[in-house]
């Protein structure tokens, strides 16, 4: 088995091998097996993700300095070893099982996929739990991010170089002001919270099928909700700007009056709307304005 591992960090097994190396009792190693269904016709997207994580884990074990023959990583594909699946009474994939070197697998030798997820770090902790082998997960560095950034910078640089005769847009205050405003609005509408916590876009009530975009508690939020708030904030801001423009710009009076009224309506309508959303979320808040 050492030989196989030196070739591939995850040993692929079929029913025959499984019986020989895992089921046959005298062993001085334990085996962590992923039961999976990777064939394209099975259409198991989770399996593929789990497989990647499992590979990461096995590779970090394979190439670590502490590598011994105490633990082996193996996988059994449903289409290659369906008899194994039958033997173990399994009907779902992916499943991670640990076969200890001594004794029968117990309940805790089945990895709780639903609870802990299949991140390689979690798997490593579980393996450390079961086998006393500490594996430091080393992910192959992800080059996509820096590459993309480099590409983007190159494109921007190239564009700037091509248009070096008119770099006016760098001195355009509107452009800068607009991007600053975008940033501020993104931040104040709680997108950073979304980024860190990763909430769902909206919540669909399974029994009634009703979709709620606003989270009921003030401690959490949905993505949709933050987008709404962003728009409302932007509308109020625009209203204020319009009000000022109406008073100062040089265009004819009719248009300015329209601008002024539009600004006023924007400010009032969207602010009171925002207030009503806030009121719905923050229970016991007594004040409202125009919209209840």
């Amino acid at each position: 088995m050492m030989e196989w591992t030196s070739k591939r960090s995850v040993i692929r097994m079929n029913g025959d091998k499984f019986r020989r190396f895992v089921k046959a009792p005298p062993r001085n190693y334990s085996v962590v097996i992923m039961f999976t269904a990777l064939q394209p016709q099975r259409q198991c997207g989770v399996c593929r993700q789990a497989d990647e994580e499992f590979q990461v884990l096995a590779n970090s074990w394979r190439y670590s300095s502490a590598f011994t023959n105490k633990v082996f990583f193996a996988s059994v594909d449903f289409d290659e070893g369906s008899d194994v699946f039958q033997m173990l009474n399994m009907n779902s994939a992916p499943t991670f099982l640990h076969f200890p070197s001594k004794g029968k697998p117990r309940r805790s030798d089945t990895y709780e996929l639903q609870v802990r997820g299949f991140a390689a770090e979690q798997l490593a902790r579980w393996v450390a739990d079961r086998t006393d082998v500490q594996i430091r997960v080393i992910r192959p560095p992800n080059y996509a991010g820096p590459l993309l950034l480099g590409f983007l910078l190159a494109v921007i640089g190239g564009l700037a170089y091509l248009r070096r005769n008119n770099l006016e847009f760098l001195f355009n205050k509107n452009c800068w002001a607009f991007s600053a405003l975008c940033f501020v609005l993104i931040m104040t509408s709680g997108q950073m919270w979304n980024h860190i916590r990763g909430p769902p876009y909206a919540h669909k009530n399974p029994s009634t099928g009703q979709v709620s975009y606003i989270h009921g508690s003030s401690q959490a939020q949905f993505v949709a909700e933050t987008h709404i708030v962003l728009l409302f904030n932007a509308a109020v801001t625009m209203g204020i700007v319009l009000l000022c423009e109406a008073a100062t710009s040089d265009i004819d009076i009719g248009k300015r009056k329209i601008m002024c009224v539009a600004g006023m309506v924007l400010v009032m309508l969207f602010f009171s709307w925002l207030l009503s959303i806030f009121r719905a979320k923050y229970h016991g808040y007594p004040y409202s304005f125009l919209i209840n």
Partner: protein
Amino acid sequence: MAEPVTVSDNKHKSQVNSGASYSGNGRSSAAAAERSSGGSGSSSGAGAAGGGLSGGLTQPAGWQSLLSFTILFLAWLAGFSSRLFAVIRFESIIHEFDPWFNYRSTHYLSSNGFYEFLNWFDERAWYPLGRIVGGTVYPGLMVTAGLIHYVLNLLHITVHIRDVCVFLAPVFSGLTSISTFLLTRELWNQGAGLLAACFIAIVPGYISRSVAGSFDNEGIAIFALQFTFYLWVKSVKSGSVFWAIGCCLSYFYMVSAWGGYVFIINLIPLHVFVLLLMQRFSRRVYIAYSTFFIIGLVLSMQVPFVGFQPIRTSEHMAAAGVFVLLQVYAFLQYLKDRLTRQEFQTLFFLGVSLAAGVVFLSVIYLTYTGYIAPWSGRFYSLWDTAYAKIHIPIIASVSEHQPTTWVSFFFDLHILVCTFPAGLWFCIKNINDERVFVALYAISAVYFAGVMVRLMLTLTPVVCMLSAVAFSCVFEHYLGDDMKRQSPPAEDSSDEDDRKNAGNLYDKAGKVRKHVSEQEKAEEGLGPNVKSIVTMLMLMLLMMFAVHCTWVTSNAYSSPSVVLASYNHDGSRNILDDFREAYYWLRQNTEEHARVMSWWDYGYQIAGMANRTTLVDNNTWNNSHIALVGKAMSSNETAAYDIMRSLDVDYVLIIFGGVIGYSGDDINKFLWMVRIAEGEHPRDIRESDYFTPQGEFRVDKAGSPTLLNCLMYKMSYYRFGEMQLDFRTPPGFDRTRNAEIGNKDIKLKHLEEAFTSEHWLVRIYKVKKQENRDRVEHKLRSSNANKQKYTSKKTSKRKRGYIRNKLSLKKGKKLQKKFL
């Protein structure tokens, strides 16, 4: 820190109490609203009076300064009085957790003197390590309070140091509003300045850290921050060394007061750097920054806690880098006069990029070789937002280090959060040197506030300033009459001229009605109707803002959290004073050097109120020590006893909210204890053991056995199973988690209950001394042998190794034949 607790409290309060609190406070809120509108010069009373009298007076400037003085004074008063809810409802006490430490050290300072304070080694904290307080604290707050106390006593005004501490933050809020006024006046105009001062006096985002009793660094630091920025802007504008030195002194005060000074030392170089990029370099900037950097650096190193950090840590390197860059830039500018244009251009770009490269590489090199410490975890977690969650659970565990939802933005800033982007827009559209500064301030602060709830505090001042700019823009155009616009059209289109004679803001207000007859002339303007409607609506928004601020202050930010209050259905109030009851018990009934183990949240309070030695406290500098306490709490009793004995623990104090439904108790914090313990002792503690197989954290029967037998669970629910709170619920029903506890029959072997407060909120256990003689667990090995020996005399058949048909001789009988 306060939020999760207070919010749950408020749900109670708001229904019953809002009416009462409102009437009690209606005056100040209405006054505040009036004032904030007055700031823009629209207050009809003031305006009319001003108009009437100024007809005779030829000095509008005098009226103007009088008005601004009055408005600032009233803003101070409103800000001060709206921070007094907690004092009026409860009493003049120190709030929460950190303020207790600050109070304790201020007390030490005022009774022992400054030098003693700097050398203070506190053996009551972090047993057995102790803490060098003088070297690990920002002394600005204590020194300020101590100084005020000293001066007052010198004047024979005898106040207790506690009262000085309680009222320090509200007083400083007034100073903050004045410095905000000054800063905004430099950025925009006086009207905006007054509005900004009124906003910051009552905005909840700032009140949250500066209510009476919240004696914390932030209370004075925001003043120092704003004042430093004002002086910086002033020195950039004037280019005089005088203002730059003033800026340095103010910066020094800030460094001595709060760790947030790092924000200043990065923002000001950023400002200079962006000015360089925008080719707005001038002598003024050069003088201001060079002075500021050098003197500021030297001064900041005088604070013992900061020490050599400004030259040894990465957080400060940006300032040094910009300083070098500025010198190179200035030198090249100087060369400009000596060289031809062509030569200069090549040299310039070469020189600047070379300098930038050299600075960057040397910083990297020095970091690599260890002369400069890399970014500390707290700062690093601001950029890589997932960092703390994975690597430093103790930072992630604090509720104020969580990211900010839009609700808390709106809650803390209300209308300002929607209008301040407009102010930013105006600032960038009419950019100049100092508006670059405020734009950078806004953008960086809004980023930090998005990452951490706590940093909302640094965002609040800039939001107030920019919103004031937006409102003042609107009022400026809609309050004045149309006459002005008509007569000199060219002059009016530019804002600059309008801004210079800000006097018109005050004098012309309230005159809109008088000019109705001249409506036909005003054809070019928007007309008085539209204008007055807009004005009314804006005033309405401001009024709502004032009302909101008062409500939020009263309901969310005025709870001392040392004393809790609950409200009955008829509106009467119950005070739950369990914390102080328990700490007082500790103070009176335990030996003076007794060591109390608790979770770190309560360390400062135990030290401050009970005056007993603690193991860990809110200054979370030693993670492994905290992890050890966490391990003790989350292991079973025997294992915990070993840890507690090795740490010499005499008492264990826990907070239990199950009886009254207090949500901030130790069982709810328990998972963090487990996580922190797991970080240091992964072999003994595993988080997954404390969950049910379904991954839930439950305290009832379905909960995991590890949880049901750990020390924290046992101490929390000891004898709770006997208690029936309500007829509708079974005995042992936990109101906080709405569950019947799973382990009702709890026996403690190494601990004994020493004290439980009235509502069971605080429970104290005494750790038993080890017994003289080891009591043997199991029964002594039963003396079977003896027994058998005894019985064997009578019935020999029970003898061991009995052979059935063994011959037994008996005297006097002859039975042998029969057998044979």
